[in-house]
């Protein structure tokens, strides 16, 4: 191991708190998932603490360990689409200095948004969601009568849900017409 690498490790470990996750992984801010993974593998080959397990200098090993923990942190956030979207927007904004590391609040926000999306799309009650998703599967498979039954069940839990009603109208239109009149 040459001296210039030692200097680089010392500099990088000291500068971590001024770097965003893209800089930690040495990639562009708009990197796509495949590039992020490739960068993670590339940086792991350089900074993986196992590589320096036999180095006696404890300070150096501590610095490498610190860098590598941050690489893992960066990868954890950037490999996830929802987290990456939020993070990219945050570090490009005016709050950048405070947003370099993904915080608990950011995490909660991403999770909250995901939950809101499910609720919006799939219904507000567990039972409503259950019947609605069953209905969607039925509709996909062309079982319109089953879809209609499931949607009616879903609507008993959430009578006001507009999306459920929309789907029900669709199912009613598509299901085979039956004629109950006695001829």
């Amino acid at each position, binding site marked *: 191991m040459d001296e210039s690498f030692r200097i680089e490790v010392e500099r990088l470990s000291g500068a971590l708190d001024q770097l965003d996750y893209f800089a930690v992984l040495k990639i562009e801010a708009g990197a796509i998932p495949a590039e992020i993974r490739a960068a993670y593998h590339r940086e792991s*080959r350089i900074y*993986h603490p196992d590589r320096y397990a036999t180095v006696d200098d404890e300070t150096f090993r501590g610095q490498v360990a610190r860098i590598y923990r941050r690489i*893992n942190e960066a990868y954890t956030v950037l490999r996830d689409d929802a987290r990456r979207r939020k993070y990219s927007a945050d570090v490009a904004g005016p709050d950048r200095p405070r947003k370099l590391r993904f915080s*608990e609040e950011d995490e909660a926000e991403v999770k909250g948004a995901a939950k809101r999306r499910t609720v919006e799309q799939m219904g507000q009650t567990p039972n409503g969601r259950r019947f609605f998703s069953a209905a969607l599967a039925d509709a996909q498979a062309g079982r319109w009568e089953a879809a209609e039954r499931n949607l009616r069940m879903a609507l008993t839990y959430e009578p006001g849900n507009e999306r459920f009603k929309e789907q029900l109208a669709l199912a009613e239109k598509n299901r085979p017409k039956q004629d109950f009149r006695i001829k």
Partner: protein
Amino acid sequence: MSDDIAVGIDLGTSYSAVATFIDGKPEVLTNEWGERTHASVVSFLEDGTVLVGNSAKRNIITNAENTVYSAKRLIGRFFFSDEVKKAQAVMPYRIVEGPNNAVRVQVGERVLAIPEVSALVLKEMKAIAETALGHEVRKAVVTCPAYFNDNQRQATKDAGRIAGLEILRIINEPTAAALAYGFGKDISQRICVYDLGGGTFDVSILEIGRDVFEVIATAGDTYLGGDDFDDRIMAWLADDFQAKHGVDLRQNKFCLQMLKEAGEKAKIDVGRDGQAVIKVEGICQTPEGQVLDLEQALGADQFNRMVMDLVQRTFKVCDEALQSARMTASDIDAVILVGAPTRLPIVRQSVRHYFQKDPMAGINPDEVVAQGAAIQASALQNRSAAAGGQTSYLLDVTPLTLRVGTAGGWAEPIIDKNTPIPIEKSKTFTTSRDGQDRVRIRVYQGESKKAEECEFLGEFEFSGFRVGYRGEVLIQVTFEIDSNGIVNVSATDNETGQKASTTINLSSGLTEADIKSASDKNAEVVLAGHPAS
């Protein structure tokens, strides 16, 4: 050079193996009898020596009370856990309660912690390696199931220290298997490791990019293994026997052991030959003194029906791992089977059906984990790695969500499952009373929002920070998961930057002093069948 030899040890529920890296490839070491795997059974003999391995396994029946097996099912667990209760009912050895809800095993007058029992298995592995290599062995990489929690990992590490080994690393069994499979092959693949052991089941999904082995997701069940298959056969045999003779074999621990042995043998026979003939002469006596034999025949179809639900359970775990990895079964390029129960045709067929792919051939399911551990042991000892790079890099993840307890019995997530390790995360806590001089936090691992449904790791108490009004003192607590998957917690006062001192309460683990004294005791133990060192 002798201190540069490091071995890889697969410390299994039923069987263990030891391997080392010689001439560029991993090699499983055999004992003097040429055996490559060794029963994880510890038998305490009358002369004070301890017998470990396949010969100790034969003592389960003749020296039942003094023979301990399947200790891994108990390691790192609390005395009140279901697994321990179940073990108490079926194990012939005595399981007693230790301090802080810990589990102890009592053999005669001796009371041993579970890591002490595992340490005796490790001592045997060390002795086998030393005999085979002709050198002293002081360092090792030891494997554990990927789904092991912090308590179980810590206990495994303690076992190594008690055995007088420097534990270079605890690595996950499926990761070790993947390493042994992909090592030196220069492949780029997505693989799934399906690891059904004696007592645990793990699935890991990895992306191998030449020398990098990245674990994308892992899932498991630490209550599912080959032993459960044996149990099914035992239950069937016992029910049938009871119907015929009116005697319940499960009431007597001696009969139960014979039954267990018969069940295990039947499972192996039916897997290999498609049928099994079970015959145990004189398994018990009726109250009238009549000696009864156990005789039965088991066909493959009947066996498959008995265990189908267990096999199905493994695929629920596979579903979970694939979902976490955001993949489907068709994204997997290769499936690797690990663990002896994966030799069963029912398991192989089901795996083929699930992944629509033949599992990789040419991999020895009993040895691949020890081989992977040996590769990693050698990598951690490689002095030229720092300059030239390594031949393999393991990028592993934490299998369980790390949580802190909050008011009302909830547990709030800190580090999600499947996060790459080593990793750290900080959280700020504050005091809730004026003049409060200590802060306590309880740490859990698990997937439930309710604290009681998660595994309790310990209570950390921080003190030595500034004393102020409530809400005024901010304490930053840093949770770190290291490369072994072991959790460390530390705290600093946000304002002064002063590190608070930490004490761990309520942990069922061993203290430094316990380990020291256990290690001294372990060193004195003479292993039967080895020359005293």
